[in-house]
């Protein structure tokens, strides 16, 4: 059984990929817990899976595309009403240039 060790740098790298800020206090427990779970998961490395096709979905979804016809969408103001910040007809986000 291999022992997966996720270190501080790896945690910070993955957090960056996930667009997730972690506080200093979250980093070490995250490293420890991810290592433990990955160790358990690594057991599937013991199986011989040569020539086994992957299953991404249990349902056949080929041919599920609908015709490309315009249909009614939610009104803009209804959608914008849920946003934390709006500007006119759009979502407002912070910008260093603003």
């Amino acid at each position, binding site marked *: 059984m291999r022992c997966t060790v996720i270190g501080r740098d790896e945690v910070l790298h993955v957090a960056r990929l996930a667009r997730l800020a972690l506080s200093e206090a979250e980093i070490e427990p995250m490293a420890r817990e991810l290592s433990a779970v990955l160790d358990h998961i690594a057991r599937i490395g013991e199986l011989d899976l040569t020539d086994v096709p992957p299953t991404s979905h249990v349902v056949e979804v080929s041919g599920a595309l609908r015709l490309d016809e315009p249909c009614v969408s939610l009104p803009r103001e209804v959608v914008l009403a849920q946003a*934390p910040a709006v500007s006119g007809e759009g979502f407002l986000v912070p910008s260093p240039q603003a």
Partner: protein
Amino acid sequence: MSVTDIRELSAVAAAAEIGAGSLSAGELFSAYRERAAADRVAGPDGLNCFTWVAAGAPLTDVSGPLAGVPLAVKDLFCTEGVPSQSGSRILEGYLPPYTASAVSRLTEAGAALLAKTNQDEFAMGSSNENSAFGPVRNPWDRERVPGGSSGGSAAAVAAGLAPWALGTDTGGSIRQPAALCGIVGLKPTYGAVSRYGMIAFASSLDQAGPLTRDVCDAALLLSHMVGRDARDATSLEFPYAIELPTAERLDGVRLGVPEELTGAGVEPGVLEAFHASIVRAQELGALVSEVRLPHAPHALSAYYVIAPAECSSNLARFDGVRYGMRAEGALELVDMYTRTRHDGFGAEVKRRIMLGTYALSSGYYDAYYGRAQRVRTKIAEDFRSVFGEVDFIVTPTAPTVAFGLGEKTGDPLAMYLNDYCTVPMSLAGIPAISIPCGLSGGLPVGLQIAGPAFCENRLLETAHALELALDFDGTPARV
């Protein structure tokens, strides 16, 4: 009828009484609403089942088949104008502009939206302790968890605060809380119920289903949920109508007991109740044999790659731009994203996003995600092969009875092991039901019955016959 009498009625019985004119839908709604609202107000002093309770009875066509019987709905189903946060702080204040298909189908059939139920954040958890609304308590023992992630739905039904409820199941999130609360929970065949409007966790696994007091109620609720929906490309036309079960015998029904899910890791009291119910099944005429699911012990590992991978992708949409909360003080866009996600997500959700992102990251994809998908193929093959020999597989639903609040929160892996018996069916996309089969130490034990895709009617018949024979008293002290 007194208020207590009304709440004793099963949903099927209540719908029939309303249809016959001997019970008022408004009176029934008020009886439940009052109790649900009291639990909501009590907060941590109550069971904390609900995140929202209706102020009054909604306009409902009680001439429909569900006759205005109140329905509690897991928070993660979008309900137009009604708070829907999937148990997360990041969706604080979100009032969806549309309603999930599963819910709208039920309300069109006459169900009346009573309440939204507490859950583990984004359905990630097996104890309902990962909720922005605080933990739910188990009505059988308030110092114990109700299971999760549909813990609020399960506890509400078990405590008589709702006649029935909707939940979702990704790796056991309907079946396990149903087992721990002593009620019935059904995860349908993947694709049977539209996922449109369900706030997604792991899209190749998520399925909506009923949590009910008995098997007939589960059949009635499910019968109005299934069917193809143009808004969910993975939804399927259900091949036949779901019928209310009537079976009392199991003559010739072949039940397989997989040794991989009925041995080590399952606590003795649970195994005892499980084996006693197998004996009852034999007395009803069932033919019981041992079967093998050789890859089932690897299901949990595959699941904890696939589900977090899909979660890390699905939850990318929560970035503080379009809905929910936004962290204050960010000067630029990425800083706003990362701070919002830091503040808005709880610890378990962060852990799974990290796990999924790691498993999908460059250099690890084949070792984790690729392999997990191949294991998923082997698990589905195991089931296909076994269903050539037997009609159904039976296992305990969960390896333990309800455990103490806080008992497993410090050890994610110990928490994940709750899903050991339910995850294989989820990966294979097959239907499975949990029915209460007895008590261990005064706490309910669930029996899981699983069959091939679209066997729901036969599954319900089998569960019904066993339910009658087991005669479980599913009444903890009504609160």
